[in-house]
């Protein structure tokens, strides 16, 4: 639409891998639970399909292991967890994110400083 306002869902696209990896680093989890935990952490706009698709892609890429946990009520749950490759991807992505956000914060602070003076 070309609106000047920042679209959170667009932002999320770039960092969803990182967010999912971070959630799984805390504890192994299944698809819907990952969605819930992302939302609990403030990422309200995360789409269910995006998370499910991301999990499948990361799994296909060999960053996750998975196992099925039978449940008495409701469907079986496929849990995902980080394997060494996933952990390495998380470290690298976290590092990239840290320097990216630092740069952006610096820019934004510079702007606000400029206004103040």
């Amino acid at each position, binding site marked *: 639409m070309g609106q000047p306002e920042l679209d959170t869902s667009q932002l999320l696209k770039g960092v969803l891998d990182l967010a999912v990896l971070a959630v799984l680093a805390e504890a192994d989890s299944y698809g819907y639970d990952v969605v819930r935990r992302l939302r609990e952490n403030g990422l309200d706009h995360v789409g269910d399909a995006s*998370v*499910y*698709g991301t999990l*499948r892609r990361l799994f296909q890429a060999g960053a996750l292991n998975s196992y099925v946990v039978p449940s008495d009520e*409701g*469907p079986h749950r496929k849990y995902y967890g980080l394997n060494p490759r996933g952990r390495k991807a998380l470290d690298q992505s976290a590092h990239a994110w840290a320097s990216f956000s630092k740069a952006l914060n610096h820019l934004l602070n510079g702007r606000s400083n400029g206004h103040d003076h």
Partner: protein
Amino acid sequence: MTTDDQASDVPPYAAAVRAALSDLPHDQAEALLEDLEDHLREIAAEAGASLTERLGPPEQYAQELRAAYGAATSGKAQREPALRNLQRAIGSVTSSVWYQQLRAFLPELRPAWWVLRAYLVVLILTAALSPGYNLHPIPNPFSSRGLLEILATIGAILFSIRLGRRSHPLRPGRRRLAIGANVVIALLALPVLASMGTFPSFAMVESGAPEQSPDFASPYSLGSVTNVFAYSKDGKPLTDVLLYDQDGRPLTLAKDPDRTTDYPIGADGQPITNAYPLNQRRLDGTPVLQPRVAIPPWPATAVPASPTASPAPSPTR
């Protein structure tokens, strides 16, 4: 917490998502959608609202999946309404209960196909290697050719089962190749099987109905024919008729274990085995009587029949 109403939401929704992604390569779609149903059931169990209310229309859900999975965005397929309707129709079929049951049952038929495909491969190879050869559904085990065919079939079946039972799954590329090979076998077998039906069948000759005259266009089909009776067109029985196949080889019949045959001895002292009818006796010594035959009425327009059935008791070589 799960009502039937919400749970029944899942199959149509999942089918619609699959239909919207049906342009993805099969293995990619499979990898992405493997446990879509379980995932949707989880959501349906939790939420009070319908899946469409919670997740948006399935087409939109599919687009989001596609984007997140990093698959190629569909081009024309999504815009063609006719194609989309077709995809939806396929989706509704594949989500129906009877289709699911059929899908679940089909893998049990796999071993039957392993045996059948081996049989078909030998049949196809036999037909390809010897075009004139008349195929039987079951080869005659008393001819060297038929025996070879049977042994080849047994070998092929063992090999085919070994192939089918291998424990590790194939890589996607190989898997597609294997499926293709199976389809090719099935397609190639069709004309071979069809051509088999045009010859007098083994079973028919075997029934031994005396009225049945064997078809001389296919000499090797005479699997269990024990004697041949020739008649002139005005119905006179011919004796000592020498028969040869298309390559000029004497046409001889397999020995009948229930009968003894007296062959005429040629001037060179060799028995003449292709002079018909054969002079046969039963094991108890009684001669085998000539069968009754129904001579078809000859067309009236033909040149007046000239009896050619001159008995030639002394066969020349």
